[in-house]
């Protein structure tokens, strides 16, 4: 009986846990609740994944109101994949958060911290599960508002300005999405995404639909940190508490990519978005410029967290590049990179969180000699970094390989050059850290020890996943391929 209600439980569980968390005054209890709920959400998403793995689609009508009128929760191969990523990262990041947050956030605010965390999780899961365009906006705002709070809790006062900047940009983005949804509703009179797709296919091209597409693309682009709209991201990631950076970097942009996919390929027809409207070339150019420029910028960063934040923008570029190829192979590569990027950036930010826990700073100069002092942490960082560059036997290699294959298949050779150049730039900026950590002698008076086990465990969990999914690609590639087939197939 409970199986049938899983799609809604996926979202509602964390939504109910949030007010409960508010009532718990002790930080430990709040953490425990958040952790248990995250684990439960992970289990639910695994069950959901197993059910949709065969290509089935689960539809759930909230309140018993049938699909085109009521709010429908809809789970298929694409969002089951996203759900797994979001919940798994939440579990790992929360494992890490207990020790890290206790140090970085004031004691009386920790209960509220986990409340905001649960709300953010609710929002991200809700975006993935819902099949209703307006519901998507509501969940987007839930996740955004709570992430502004989480980022604003950073120690540095610049966290406040970063959060404010994100708030302004994020609200503009969300409002753009709202306008887009409104215009679509104006044309079709429905908000259900499947129904929208069906009616838009009949109605065909009109100026309102074109405007809606433009607003939605720009709005999601802001949330996605697509190249010229990424200005909020580096500061937000740099000054947020370590655990939040892990969570945001590995999930928030991924969910935005999911929204982009859902709208470009399912709500609108791919033949409209990439045929009648020249979005493919547009996205490809933006992504390519983004990869090259932000990778270059990250070479010159002094703060390692900021460097990785810029690199995140570049990685988003790879995903968008895959999307812009508009082929089954391209989408597979984009989804695969989405999964792998969550793993590698998760590992890297977790390792940096360990460093920040011990040193209180993640400046490049402070890392000198850490390879000897914190061998496990830096080794995890190295694994993540190798994956980021795309060395064989790591997860990063797999997705880059698929991306290159997809670009070759379409015959877009300049893109292949861009992808390879991006990897080379990644080598440069990662090398700066590695050189600092392993080849420089540690300062005499530096007396740091290895990070505690509670921090190392989640870090190595993700580092191990990087290696595992670099070797055994059956799950990740299989899932990505199936999701891509679903997206491409639906737009015929």
């Amino acid at each position, binding site marked *: 009986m409970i199986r049938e209600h899983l799609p809604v439980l996926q979202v509602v569980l964390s939504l109910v846990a949030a007010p409960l968390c508010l009532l718990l005054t002790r930080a430990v209890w709040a953490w425990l609740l958040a952790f248990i709920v995250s684990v439960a959400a992970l289990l639910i998403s695994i069950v959901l994944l197993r059910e949709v793995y065969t290509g089935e689609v689960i539809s759930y009508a909230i309140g018993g109101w049938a699909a085109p009128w009521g709010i429908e929760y809809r789970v298929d191969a694409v969002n089951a994949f996203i759900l797994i990523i979001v919940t798994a990262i939440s579990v790992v990041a929360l494992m890490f958060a207990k020790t890290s947050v206790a140090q970085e956030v004031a004691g009386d605010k920790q209960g509220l911290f986990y409340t905001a965390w649960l709300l953010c999780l609710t929002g991200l899961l809700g975006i993935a599960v819902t099949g209703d365009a307006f519901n998507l906006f*509501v969940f987007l*705002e839930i996740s955004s*508002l709570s992430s*502004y709070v989480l980022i604003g809790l950073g120690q540095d006062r610049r966290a*406040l300005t970063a959060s*404010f900047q994100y708030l*302004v940009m994020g609200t503009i983005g969300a*409002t753009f999405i709202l*306008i887009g949804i*409104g215009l679509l509703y104006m044309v079709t009179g429905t908000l259900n995404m499947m129904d929208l797709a069906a009616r838009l296919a009949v109605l065909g091209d009109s100026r309102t639909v074109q405007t809606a597409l433009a607003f939605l693309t720009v709005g999601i682009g802001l949330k996605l940190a697509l190249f010229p709209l990424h200005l909020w991201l580096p500061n937000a990631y740099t000054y947020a508490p370590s655990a939040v950076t892990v969570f945001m970097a590995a999930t928030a942009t991924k969910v935005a990519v999911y929204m982009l996919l859902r709208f470009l390929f399912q709500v609108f027809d791919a033949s409209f978005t990439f045929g009648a409207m020249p979005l493919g070339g547009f996205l490809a150019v933006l992504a390519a410029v983004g990869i090259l420029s932000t990778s270059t910028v990250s070479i010159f960063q002094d703060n390692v967290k900021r460097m990785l934040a810029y690199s995140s923008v570049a990685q988003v570029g790879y995903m968008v590049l895959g999307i812009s190829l508009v082929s089954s192979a391209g989408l597979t590569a984009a989804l695969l990179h989405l999964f792998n990027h969550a793993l590698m950036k998760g590992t890297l930010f977790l390792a940096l969180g360990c460093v920040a826990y011990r040193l209180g700073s993640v400046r490049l100069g402070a890392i000198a000699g850490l390879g000897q002092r914190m061998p496990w942490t830096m080794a995890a960082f190295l694994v993540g970094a190798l994956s980021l560059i795309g060395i064989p036997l790591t997860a990063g290699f797999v997705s880059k390989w698929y991306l290159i294959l997809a670009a070759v298949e379409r015959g877009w050779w300049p893109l292949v050059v861009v992808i390879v150049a991006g990897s080379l730039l990644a080598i440069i900026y990662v090398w700066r850290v590695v050189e600092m950590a392993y080849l420089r002698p540690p300062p005499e008076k530096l007396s740091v020890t290895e990070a505690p086990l509670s921090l190392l465990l989640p870090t190595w969990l993700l580092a191990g996943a990087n290696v595992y999914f670099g070797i055994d690609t059956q799950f990740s590639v299989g899932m990505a391929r199936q999701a891509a087939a679903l997206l491409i197939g639906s737009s015929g």
Partner: protein
Amino acid sequence: MDLLGLYNYWIVILLMMMGFYVVIASGHLVKKLIGLNLFQASVFILYISMGTVDGGAAPILRSGVGVFSNPLPHVLILTAIVVGVATTALGLALVVRIKEAYGSVEEEDIHRQDDSL
């Protein structure tokens, strides 16, 4: 081309551009939030005017009235208004904290202080 017939869109566009301009051009953080509010308000008007039906009554069920305005956009925008209030409250709270941390709410001052760090 009946330009004035679609006057509601003109209002929406005018408000939207005003709000957007304030968000971009003003360095004062509170003014930025006011601009943001204006920007959101324009979308509220877009939705509400979208639901209008010519000659339709307020969408409350009672006898003797056959034509109603579409209530769905109103309900949707009620949610969006609540979201807008939450955003404004959060934004203002951040401004209060920024004021305490920097002693200023002017963007230029804040950037200047951070560069000197």
